[in-house]
């Protein structure tokens, strides 16, 4: 369903153009219907991997496929829903207009779209605010609108970058339930987080990335089977010791 093979990505930084390796030989395979939790500390390469999957940036080498199609093909994104980290949307559009755009641009029939928008806004708790401009929304409301936008075209693959970011406990519960619903519907979910509890609750498989390298992948049950908590595994994998300080 999602196949990432030997991805390398580097960026130039600063006046001298110092090369920073964001990803080094990252390979991941995610099967249909799987919820894959992508875990790593800040700046580990989670968002870079996701942006390559969305073709927002291009890898230096390696390839990424979704539904057996190269991610460079825009048509792949008809079947992909994406929630960016800290999403920003157009200030003067309403949530309803935002979802209209998402649905129509993805080729959803306008008659189906109308009921889908209403259903999704109700699901994310924005029905009462559907006509308000997005600039008047709180951070949590923007995140909810972003989730609805990611799902408006009923995608087969859902990619969520830090979906719980900025949400209150109610919002976190709603997102968690949504991920479980998607899983029940047989959707493939790829979500990144640095919150261990979220990964542990929703993932079938996990990947731990650190300093641009994929350090560990495996079934969650197998990874934490030896009496260790996910936190222990994570700390050991990224080489952090007592107090979360790297060795």
């Amino acid at each position, binding site marked *: 369903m999602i196949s990432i093979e030997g991805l390398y990505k580097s960026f130039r930084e600063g006046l001298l153009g110092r090369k920073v390796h964001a990803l080094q030989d990252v390979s991941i395979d995610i099967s249909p219907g799987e919820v894959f939790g992508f875990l790593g500390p800040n700046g580990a390469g989670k968002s870079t991997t996701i942006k390559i999957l969305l*073709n927002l940036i291009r890898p230096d080498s390696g390839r990424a496929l979704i539904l057996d199609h190269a991610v460079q093909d825009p048509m792949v994104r008809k079947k992909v*829903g994406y929630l960016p980290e800290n999403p920003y949307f157009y200030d003067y559009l309403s949530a309803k*207009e935002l979802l209209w755009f998402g649905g129509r641009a993805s080729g959803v029939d306008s008659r189906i779209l109308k009921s889908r928008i209403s259903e999704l806004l109700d699901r994310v708790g924005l029905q009462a605010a559907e006509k308000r401009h997005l600039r008047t929304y709180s951070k949590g409301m923007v995140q909810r609108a972003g989730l609805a936008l990611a799902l408006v075209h009923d995608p087969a693959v859902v990619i969520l970058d830090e979906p719980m970011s900025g949400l209150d406990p109610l919002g976190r519960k709603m997102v968690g339930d949504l991920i479980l619903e998607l899983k029940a519907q047989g959707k493939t979910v790829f979500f990144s987080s640095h919150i261990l509890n979220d990964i542990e609750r929703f993932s079938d498989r996990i990947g731990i990335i650190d300093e641009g390298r994929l350090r560990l992948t495996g079934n969650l049950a197998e990874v934490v089977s030896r009496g260790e908590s996910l936190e222990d595994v994570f700390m050991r994998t990224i080489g952090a010791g007592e107090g979360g300080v790297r060795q």
Partner: protein
Amino acid sequence: MRALWPLAVITYKEGIRNRAMYGIFLLALLLFAANFLICGMIMQEVGKVAVDVALSAVSFSGLLLVLFVGINLLAKDLDRRTIYMVLARPISRGQYIWGKFFGMAMLIISAVGCLGGCALLSIASVRWAFPGYFPRFALGPVVLALLLIALMLILLSAVSFLFASFTTSSFVTLILTIISYFIGHGVAAIKALVEAPETVGIEVSTATVRLVKGAYYMFPNFSLFDIKIQAAHNLPVSGTYVAGTLAYGLIYSALVVTLAGLIFSRREFP
């Protein structure tokens, strides 16, 4: 086109609801009101002045629209990463540029339509107050002048999209667009001057002639779209000139936006 239309629609809505639009329209209304006062003060060639001032107000307000609303519509997408929500759809980078451009063109046409209506009201109010000064007034040339103003603004917007496709700062795009606007307005007259300097008794070096010719071919000729004088004096404008100018504006805009799309296709959005 299926992917372009929704993007054009949200670009248009985002632009038309922008608060900067209120400022631009308020300024335009003040200029139209000033038209009445100016004509009342000068009491000479009132009909021509009324048309010239009204059309200049539309042109100036449209310029502000392109510079401060149009450029921001694209720049904000890049600065605030709202472009992610667009490119996460089955929309290529080239289609993104075209969709934004169509939205901006719709915004310009609506704004010029609205401002043009106000300009006609302003001219009508002056005509009502000073009916003796409008012996040669005709509506057709004024409407034609408004049409060409809209096309000039669409072309300027296309040029701003080209600059935005390779710069990383909206300020640089703004400066380059303003420079293009001024060069595009004056370069045809300067070219005519440097090619026949003896007519005004000056000497021009070969390098200067080459430089001016280079600028003439590099920048769009915005002066072609300016028929305010003809409209004010009700002078004839040939159908060939209008058709040629329309074709020039549309083809030039299409080429510039296509080039912008090609350059933009190479960009990454980390």
